[in-house]
C-alpha cells in the first residue's frame, strides 16, 4: 500500500506548482488554469485522508470543491472573454485599470 505521505507530497507539489504558475504566468487563461491546479492539489489530499481514515466526509468535500470549481470556471471564463473583447489582450500586466 502506498503510504499517505506520498499522496500528500504529490498534493503539495501540485499546489505549489499552481501557486508558482499563478504568480509567474502572464496569460490570463494560464493563471486561471493554475487556480484549477491548486484546487485539484487540495482535492487530492482530501481524498488521500478520506481513504486513510476511512471517512467519507473528505470525499464529500471533494465533490463540493469540484462543483464550486465548475461554477467558478463558467463565471471566470465568461469574465475572461469579456476582458478580451474590451481590451484585446489577455496579458495580466496590462489589465491594470485599478491602479491609482
Amino acid at each position: 500500500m502506498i503510504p499517505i505521505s506520498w499522496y500528500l507530497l504529490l498534493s503539495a507539489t501540485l499546489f505549489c506548482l499552481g501557486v508558482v504558475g499563478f504568480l509567474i504566468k502572464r496569460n490570463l487563461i494560464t493563471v486561471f488554469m493554475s487556480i484549477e491546479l491548486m484546487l485539484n492539489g487540495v482535492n487530492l489530499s482530501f481524498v488521500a485522508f478520506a481513504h486513510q481514515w476511512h471517512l467519507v466526509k473528505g470525499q464529500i468535500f471533494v465533490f463540493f470543491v469540484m462543483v464550486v470549481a465548475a461554477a467558478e470556471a463558467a463565471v471566470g471564463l465568461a469574465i475572461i472573454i469579456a476582458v478580451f473583447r474590451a481590451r484585446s489582450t489577455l496579458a495580466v500586466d496590462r489589465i491594470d485599470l485599478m491602479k491609482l
Partner: protein
Amino acid sequence: MNGPLLFLPLIPLLPFAGFLVNGILGRRLPKALVTFVGLTAPFASFASVAHDAWLAWSGGLNLPVIEPDAPAWISAGAFHVDFGSVLDPLSLVMLLIVTGVGFLIHIYSVGYMNDDPGYARYFSYLNLFLFFMTVLVQAGNVLMMFVGWEGVGLASYLLIGFWFQKTSAASAGMKAFVVNRIGDFGFLIGIFLLLSQFGTLTFTDIAAQLDANPALQGGIITAISICLLVGATGKSAQLPLYVWLPDAMEGPTPVSALIHAATMVTAGVYMIARTHFLFGRSPFALTMVAIVGTATALFAATIALVQTDIKRVLAYSTISQLGYMFLGCGVAAYSAAIFHLMTHAFFKALLFLAAGSVIHGLGGEQDMRRMGGLKRYMPVTYWTMTVAVFAIAGFPPLAAFFSKDAILSAAFMAGTSGKVFWFVGLVTAMLTSFYMFRLWYLTFQGERRMTHEEHGAAMHARADTKLVLEAEHEPHESPWSMLGPLVILAVLSIVGGWIGAGRFGAYLAPSVGTGSAESANSTLEWTLTGLAVAVAALGWWIADRMYRVRPEAPDRVAASMSGLYKLLSHKYWVDELYQTVIVKPLLAMSRFFLEWVVDVAILGGAAWLLGGIASLGGAILQRWQSGNLRSYAAWLAAAAAVLLIIMLLPELLGANGIDIKWAGH
C-alpha cells in the same frame, strides 16, 4: 412634620414662582398683573416669615427648628446632603430683614421702574434674587448655602446689567461676577476642606463634632476659616475684592438698595456668623477678619469723602459699613455685627431709595455738584433722607448709634489690638459723619445749582436708561409708591436700634454664642458712647463749615492738598492697579493661550496631525495599489505562507513534535 405649620419651603419657593410667572409670561401679561405677581410673591414670603417670627415670639415655637428628615439631595456613600433648612434666631432675623426690606423695595420699584420697557423682566429678576437669598439664609448646610450664594451672585449680575444696552452696565455686571468668582473659589475650597475634615456639611453636625473635640484648634480650622473669609470678602465687598461694588451702581437704584446695600452684600457677614464655631477655634482667622474689616472701613470711608456721584458715595459708605460688621465679627461680637447688619439694612436701603427718589426727580442726574436746594422740591425725600443721614452718622437715638456703638465697644474690650481697631473705627465714624453730611448739604441744602435747561439736557442725556419722565422742567417729588417705603424705612431707621445691643445679643445667643465674655463697666461704656457721638458731631461740624458756611472752602482744601485729593478721587488707583497687574496680563495670557496654544497648537495641530497621518498612510499604501494582479496574488500568497508558519511554528518547535502520522500505520 410635627408642631406648628412653618411654611419653611414656601419662603423661597413663592418668589421663585413669581420669577417663573413673570419671567416666562411677563411680556404678554398686562402690567397690572405683572405688578400683582411681583408684589404678592415677596409679600407672601414675608408673611410666612412674620408668621414664624410671631410663633417664635409668642412661645408657640421652640427655636431652633431643624428639619430632621428633609428630602435628600445628594447621597453617595457616607456623603449625604439634604434640602434641610434651619430656623434659629439668626436666620429668623435675617429672613425678616431680607423679605421685609425686600418687599418694601419691590413696592418702591413699582414707582421707580414704571416707565421701563423691561418692567416684567425686572420683577422676575428681583423675585429670583429673593428666592436665592432666602435659600442662602435658610440653608441648613454649607452646600445649600453655596447654592444660594451663587444664585444671588447670578441675580446681582442680571440686575447690574439690567440696562444691558449700556456698555458700562454690561461690563459692570461682568466685573461683579468675575470678582465674586474669585471669592467663591475660596469658599469652595473651604467647603472641600470642611468635607474632608468633618465628613459632613451640615452646620449642626460640624458644630457638634467641634464640641466633641475641644482640642481641635488652629491648623486645618484656620485654613477653612481663611477660605471662608476669602469667600466673604468677595460677596461682602471687602478689601481686596471690593472693586465690584462701586461699579454695581450701574444697576437700577432699587437694586443698589436691596442687593448692593441691604441684603446680598451682608451675606458674607451672615456666613461668618453662621460658621462662628469655626472662627471661634481659630484666633488667627478671627484677627484676620477684624483686620480686613477695619482696613476696609477706613479705606472706603476715605474714598467716599471726595466722590461726586451720589450713588458712589453711598456705595463706598456701604463698603465701609460692611467693614464695621466684619470688625464686629472679628472681635467675636457676632450679635453686634448682625445688629449693625439689621440697622444698616434699614438706613442704607433708605439712603439708596431716597437717592433714587432724587435721581428720579431730577430725571437721571446723579452728580451732587449739580443738585442742591432740593429741600423745597422734595420734602418727603428730604426728611426721610435726613433721618437716614443722622442714623448712619450715629446720632442717638437713631439706629446706627446703638449698633455701631456695640461694635466699637466690643472692639475696645478685645485686648490691645482691639484698641487699635476701636481707634480706626472711631476715625471712620468721623469720616462717615462728614461724607454723609456733605452729601446732605450738597443735595438738599443751599441754592439750586441746576438750571432748567440743564435739567432738560440731563433728561435727554440719560434717555438710554429709559428714565425719562414726563416733560416737566421742575424737580418734582416722587409718587407715593416710592415715598411709602421711604417713610416706613425712616421709621425703622429711627426705632430699629431701640431694642438695644444687649437684648438683641441675648436673643441671638443660641445661634452665635455670647461673644466676648468681658463687658465694660458703665463709666467706660458711657465714655466710649460719648466719644462716638462726639466724633459724629465733629464730622457734622466740619461738613457744615465746608459746605454751608463757606461753600468755596472745599475747592481751596482740595487745592491745598492736591496730591491727597487726587489719590482719593482716583480711589487710590486701585482699579488701575488691578487693571495693569491682574486684568491686562491675564487677558494677554488668555489671548495668547486661546490664539496660539488652543487655536494654533491644539486645534490646528490636531487637524494637521490627522491630515498628515491620512496622507502619509495614503502615500505608503498607494504603493500596494499597483494594479498588477500578480503582485496582489504574491502578497496574498506571502500572507498565507506567514499565517501557515505562525500556525505551525509552535507545533514544529514543541516537545511533542508533529502530530500527523506521516507513516500510514
